[in-house]
């Protein structure tokens, strides 16, 4: 129906066709987003106490990792990450770069979910996507109008950087494929957030406190830096 409308060259109808297309895309994106964001490596499978058994058999327990679902999800998320990372490299506009970074950070959070690090994924979303990115965008808005910004480096420099980074990537791949890791096979127990918290307040107490002090200092420092001179 819409193809015919387009063929007749009716502007309004083709616009409608586009709108319906975006409707379909929206539904598709929502569905894929929900599938991708569904943390499959849920800690519900991790421990062996009674609650977990309850969840395992309950209607709403998490799906077990493994099977066909995990590789599909991994490849989808990894593709998104890689494309977004390359997008950051290629983009010339600073705001587009920031949006690519947003997608990259989001998909890294999904990688964390796939790696059964739920808490880390959520923290990544909150801190990076909700915090760091806002800071970046703030910076963009404050500075995007500056007249002398050159986004185009010289061609030679660009090629040089590409060669260096390509070589680095190849070297990393070679190393990765030649290395033999003592990997654990199969489904491994995840880490519960309680465990994480306990470790953070016992074994890693000193770094935790130091990080707190650091954040404090950074807060004061950043406020001071951004302050207008009198």
């Amino acid at each position, binding site marked *: 129906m819409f193809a015919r409308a387009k063929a007749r060259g009716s502007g309004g109808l083709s616009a409608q066709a586009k709108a319906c297309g975006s409707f379909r895309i929206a539904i598709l994106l929502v569905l894929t987003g929900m599938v991708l964001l569904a943390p499959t490596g849920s800690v519900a499978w991790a421990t062996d106490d009674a609650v977990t058994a309850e969840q395992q058999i309950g209607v709403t327990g998490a799906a077990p990792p493994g099977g066909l679902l995990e590789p599909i999800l991994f490849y989808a998320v990894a593709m998104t990450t890689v494309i977004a990372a390359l997008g950051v490299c290629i983009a010339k506009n600073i705001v587009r770069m920031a949006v690519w970074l947003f997608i990259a950070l989001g998909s890294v959070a999904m990688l964390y979910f796939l790696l059964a690090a739920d808490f880390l994924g959520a923290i990544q979303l909150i801190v990076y996507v909700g915090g760091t990115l806002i800071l970046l965008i703030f910076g963009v*808005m*404050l500075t995007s*109008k500056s007249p002398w910004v050159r986004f185009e480096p010289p061609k030679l420099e660009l090629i040089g950087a590409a060669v260096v980074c390509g070589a680095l990537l190849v070297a990393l791949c070679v190393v990765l494929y030649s290395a033999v890791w003592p990997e654990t096979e199969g489904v491994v127990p995840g880490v519960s957030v309680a465990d994480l918290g306990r470790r953070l307040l016992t074994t890693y107490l000193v770094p935790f406190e130091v990080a707190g002090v650091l954040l404090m200092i950074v807060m004061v420092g950043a406020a001071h830096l*951004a*302050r*207008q001179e009198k």
Partner: protein
Amino acid sequence: MAEIVLQSAPDVLIDIDRSEQGDLHTEEMLVNMGPQHPATHGVLRVVLRTDGEMVLEAIPHIGYLHRCAEKIGENLQPFQFIPYTDRMDYLSGINNNQAFAIAVEKLCGIKVPSRGQAIRVIFAELNRIASHLVTVGCYGLDMGAMTMFWWCFREREMILDLFEAACGARLTYSAITVGGVHDDLPDGWVERCREFLDYFGPKIDDYNKLLSYNHIFLKRTGNVGVISLEDAIAYGLTGPCLRGSGIRWDLRKVRPYDGYEKYDFDIPIALPGGTDGRPEGVVVGDNWCRYFMRVLEMAQSVRIIRQALDQLPDGDVLAKKIKNLKLPDDEVYVEAENPRGQLGFYVRGDGSTIPYRVKARGPSFNNLSILTHICRDILIADMPAFIASIDIVLGEVDR
């Protein structure tokens, strides 16, 4: 009669001092507010020079609604020009009719029958209430409190119904004409008007509860956009804007016309916060005071209408022979108290039936002139608040 009330000096407009706290100094930006902006009350265009959320300078641009009203007046007989005055300040058409009619009557020496005068007062005050209801309601709308707008329009609809019953029109009445009122009141109108007044009186308390004394509203309007009395006088502000700066000046008391001297009513003026029921945080001359002037004036208008209805004399409503009236070779300038301030008409006759010159002095135009002076170093959110508080009608600004 004019008494200048001593007032405290207005504080700094808002707390933000750019040199101290505006540390995220960004580039200046020119923003067009209007002519199709929802909060500029018609086709006002204000060009804002902004730094982030701060407005550094606001320059009004007018003329989008210019219809040569005054020039038309020089080509028509006075009674034919009456409908054009409706269209100047379209929210208070009756008051415009009245001002022009008084000017022509003074020029030609026409005596208006007493019943006509009383009906004029009733109409004028009803229209004042209707106009203030729009102002007060739109003030809520511009503050984001949409309910106020609907409540006010609910009551305004009833006034429009009354007008429709009396003269057949709901917005451009042309009911007051040279020499009196065009038609007498229909049967039963007085009772319906009384019924409405009984209903409307308590509503003013509702408005106060909903919006006037609301904490957020007070915080947003109190001590914002303060016009000092000197500025108000220097810029020729009139009406509620002038009284909102703390001076008791109302033409209905100062130079009574159409028998206003027969009625007992008060002229409310702005008082500093904490006195006479005014909330804390309010200073004389701020947005809140100008807004509250309208609320108080509505109550006074109700008083006037009640008295006028009680004292309504019998007799004619229209003087004889107003068509093909010969305007003497003389000039006259008369002002009347409109809801928005003093509307003055200058009429110059040359012995023919058509005026040689008609000139209007619009309150909105003069009130608007202070915009640039006040809207300096305020927040963007205060722009609509200030524009709504001086309550301009672009039909009358551009004429």
